[in-house]
């Protein structure tokens, strides 16, 4: 097992700093919905960073902004020490649903995100083989997605995100639609991938045990679009899903969460 140290000044060069990020949606009836209200996020290089919060609080919106698919209203993003537009952040995105092209084979689905990058045919080929190997799907390259199980489809989604060789992996509740057994397998495989590739992972979930099991750091968003709590999870790895120490951490975090929700509701 690799013992990860908290990133020091020196190897923190590739970290992400988001400051004063705000996003407001105008709903159909013309009402303004503040989804992200002036939030600051710092994610260290190679960190496993998890964002938690109740449904509809803006977790996906945060990831979409980082992926450059929706514009932010206000805020700055700094990556590797210099300001950067979110569209230029080197990210790979894994969604809650696999979002595969069902009419393309597994291999083609991966290849599609490589087509428009400056890669030769043989480099693309190598990447496809590599990432399918990483997620354990080298035998399914010629299969069509609808023929795969839910867990396998999610693996294809992960392979596709890895294919663009991103420094940052954005994952939006990637395991929430899987059964617990499959999800556990995928979580362990994800931790292995994270260890071996040293990518930065920004992970969204509303499952507290998943957050504690996987993450180095957990950040809580509330329904007003603010960050109200951040915790470092310092348990040794490898962790055991049902370890009482982890359960204790989960309980403490849940208490913090519900106490906070109670205060903002009573205001």
């Amino acid at each position: 097992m690799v013992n990860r140290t908290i990133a020091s000044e020196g190897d923190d060069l590739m970290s992400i700093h988001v400051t004063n990020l705000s996003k407001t949606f105008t709903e159909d009836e013309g009402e303004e919905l503040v989804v992200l209200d002036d939030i600051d996020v710092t994610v260290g290089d190679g960190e496993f960073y998890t964002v938690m919060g109740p449904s509809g609080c803006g977790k996906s919106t945060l990831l979409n902004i980082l992926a450059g698919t929706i514009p932010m209203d206000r805020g700055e993003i700094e990556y590797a020490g210099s300001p950067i537009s979110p569209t230029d952040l080197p990210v790979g995105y894994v969604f809650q649903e696999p979002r595969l092209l069902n009419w393309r084979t597994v291999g083609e689905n991966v290849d599609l995100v490589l087509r428009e990058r400056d890669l030769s045919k043989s480099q693309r080929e190598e990447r496809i083989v590599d990432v399918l190997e990483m997620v354990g799907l080298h035998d399914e390259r010629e299969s069509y997605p609808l023929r795969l199980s839910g867990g396998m489809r999610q693996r294809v989604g992960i392979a596709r995100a890895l294919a663009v060789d991103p420094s940052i992996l954005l994952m939006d509740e990637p395991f929430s639609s899987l059964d617990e057994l499959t999800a556990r397998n995928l979580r362990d495989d994800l931790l292995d991938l994270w260890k071996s590739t040293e990518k930065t992972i920004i992970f969204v979930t509303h499952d507290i045990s998943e957050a504690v099991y996987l993450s180095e750091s957990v950040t809580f968003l509330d329904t007003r679009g603010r960050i109200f709590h951040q915790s470092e999870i310092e348990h040794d790895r490898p962790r055991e899903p049902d370890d009482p120490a982890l359960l204790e951490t989960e309980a403490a975090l849940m208490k913090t969460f519900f106490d906070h929700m109670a205060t903002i509701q009573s205001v």
Partner: protein
Amino acid sequence: MALKNESLGGVIRDDVVEPVLRRVRENLLQTVLPITVLLVIWGGVASYISDPGTLPGPLITFEQTYYLTFTEDPYGLTALDHVRVTFVRAIVASVLVLLLSVVFGILMAVVKPVGDSLVNFLPLGMTVPAVVIILLSLVWFGFHESGLIFAVIVAATPFGVINMWQGARDVNIGLLEMAHSFDASNRMIWRHIYIPHLLPYLFGSYRYILGMVWKVTVLGEVFGLSDGLGAMLRTHFQFGNIEIVLGYLMLFVGIVLIIEYVFLKPLEDHLFRWRT
């Protein structure tokens, strides 16, 4: 395998005849059985009525079909020639209808004002009886082919447009979001998301359009043309030759079935093989 495929006959045997036979074998219950039942009922009713002038039995009818197919009429045309004339008209018209449907269906989905205004007119186009459209268009454009094709286009296009519009609106937003997050160009998005997504709708629409176009074309021929299947039906109906009318009908049905099972279905199976 490769050797066998080299001759044209081999190709036809392997790629056309084999799949058709396989489909018949696999769907024996769905194909042979209903046809047999239908023929038995037909034969039963015909012998009960026992008046070939009203309802000729299947045997007389198929004999008639055989005869018509290979015998020239006074103008030197066989039934096959007439059906071919109708067939060409229907194909030309249906392809034009399909093109219009694709263009307007997508336009309606992409340009909101176009969608909002056309959506009010389409039901109108769909409710005007085909006969009215045919008669008016024959009067306006003359009793020949161009009038007929115009009528068919007017009658069938609204249905195709609705279908394609539905398809274009159903595109999965999640996939588009995914494509954007991986910086896909518009070209990529069209080629790998929109077009493959629309293809099944295109197929569905074409089936529907073709069915509609056959009917309207034949009807138009009945009213105003001197050749084609519809014209023959009119002539023989006027003379009370019901067995000839049915003989023509069987030839027509046979050709439509061949188009479906030899062309459309195999093509569809190949294109949509990803649907498990």
